């Protein structure tokens, strides 16, 4: 489904952040990526989405056999890739619902489908907001504008629920969430997840993985995946940290 091979990427000053990432993600799988701060976890999600601050030095990223690196950013999204960044961007003045509808219809246009009508979109929106226990105020607000960290993360999952991507790359979705919000967001992700989809979770803590069971856990360090294992690896990392791993 998502195939990342020997992906290398650098920032403007030439510093290489990703030094050869290999990752195969199949439908129905949940991959957790853990690792110390500065290891390249957040960079990975931005590079596969095509953030202009990064330059791809080599390697390939394919989604269902299509080369993502040759696509424009919006084409990558409409092909089924979704990323949620650690600090979602605030866009005052762009209404949350209008933005969602624009994004939803952009995907439909990309897939050659007609625009959704207002009533159907309203129903879809309400259904997904109920799933995430979001109140009506979210509709009136600007995108992430003035929202708390937890509210932003919930808003991100709302977007994921509505856009229905094949592969979601969620970067520290659990940060800034209290216990109840963590449960709600995790339930939302589990609900959206299906055998045809895949999720990649970046996290520092086991607590998110108590709710969302990973198929694989990977350790990213110095721009490379240096260790992969099952869910038990996350428990060991929680107990012992990263120092015991030899690169």
């Amino acid at each position, binding site marked *: 489904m998502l195939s990342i091979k020997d992906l290398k990427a650098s920032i403007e000053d030439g510093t290489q952040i990703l030094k050869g990432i290999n990752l195969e993600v199949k439908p129905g799988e949940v991959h957790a990526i853990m690792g110390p701060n500065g290891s390249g976890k957040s960079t990975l999600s931005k590079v596969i*989405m*095509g*953030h*202009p601050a990064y330059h791809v030095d080599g390697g390939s990223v394919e989604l269902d056999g299509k080369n993502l690196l040759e696509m*424009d*950013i*919006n084409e*990558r*999204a*409409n092909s089924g890739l979704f*990323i949620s960044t650690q600090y*979602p*961007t605030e*866009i*005052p*003045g*762009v209404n949350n619902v209008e*933005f969602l509808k*624009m*994004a939803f219809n*952009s*995907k439909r246009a*990309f897939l050659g489908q007609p625009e959704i009508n207002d009533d159907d979109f309203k129903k879809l929106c309400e259904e997904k907001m109920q799933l995430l226990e979001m109140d009506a105020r979210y509709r009136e607000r*600007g*995108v992430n504008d003035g929202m708390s960290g937890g509210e932003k993360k919930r808003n991100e999952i709302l*977007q994921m629920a509505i*856009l229905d991507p094949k592969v979601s790359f969620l970067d520290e979705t659990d940060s800034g969430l209290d216990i109840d919000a963590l449960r709600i967001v995790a339930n939302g992700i589990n609900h959206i997840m299906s055998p045809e989809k895949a999720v990649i979770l970046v996290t520092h803590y086991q607590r998110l993985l108590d709710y969302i069971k990973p198929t694989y856990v990977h350790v990213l360090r110095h721009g490379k995946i240096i260790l992969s294992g099952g869910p038990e690896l996350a428990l060991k990392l929680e107990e012992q940290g990263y120092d015991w791993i030899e690169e």
Partner: protein
Amino acid sequence: MDAITRIKQLGMPRRNNELWTFFPVAKIPNVLSPDSDCHVADAPRNDNQDAFDFSEENDFAALLPVAQNARTMVQNIADGSEEMAMLKCNNDYGHTVLNIGKNAKASIEILDNKVQHPICAERFDINVGEGASVEIFFANPANDLPLTFRHFRITQAAGSNVRFSAIERGNGITRVSIDAFLNAAGANFDARTLNVLGGESSSHHRLHIYHNAPETTSTQLSRNLLDGNATASYDGSVIVGNGCTKAYSSQLVNTILLSENSSVSVKPVLKIYHDDVECTHGNTVGELDAEQMFYLVSRGIPEKAARKMLMHAFAFDTFAPLPEGPAKKRLLQEL
């Protein structure tokens, strides 16, 4: 002193006159010359000019309509009344006097002048009574007037509130000048302007806000979206007089340059003659926010539509804080 005598004293605007620093003064027809198309020297003098003394007026644009013998239209809004009014000047020169009574509420929309002359100039004298609340606004659709001047002289009594809001999208050269006099405690003046310009157009704002009493407040927010070879300038002065305790003033100019050749010039001036006051000014110039663009396109929205959304958001935020009313409705509708 009448307007033409004062214009002759001042002479035509020059770039070394600080009121006209950023303005393409060469584009102004020479009204002092008998060979000019405007023939100001030969114009018969209108009696209504006798009510005004222009001996201390320094702005050519404020004098020009009267010097060109504009017919003065006087409108009075009674104490305590609520009125909505639309003002329209159909001539190349216009002069309007508005007297707004105590505790009146007025909403004044200035409609676009459709005349096709090489120059169009309008002057508005607005006297706002105690406790009155007035919104003055215009949302001019794009017009092709080559040279437009609009001058506002606003005097405010105690506890009065004036909100001035405007969108400019003309294809020519526009200058809006405002002199606001906050003459008694509690007077508040709020100015919000948005320029959406492209091509060879240019817009120039000159504001002088005089805090002449304690506890007077003023805010200025000016936003520019400039494309093509468009230019904008903002010359904003705040003068806080001696003894004007607890005066508050803020000025913010935000510009997004959408092309290599567009440009903006900003000149904030604060003249403060008292200690216990708060005055701020700020100026930002940039492009559309790269992170916001990335966020929108990463949700599948095409780049062109994303740019449009961000420009709309920038414009929307200029007027979103206005209280609900005709001005907010009209200006947001125009976006």
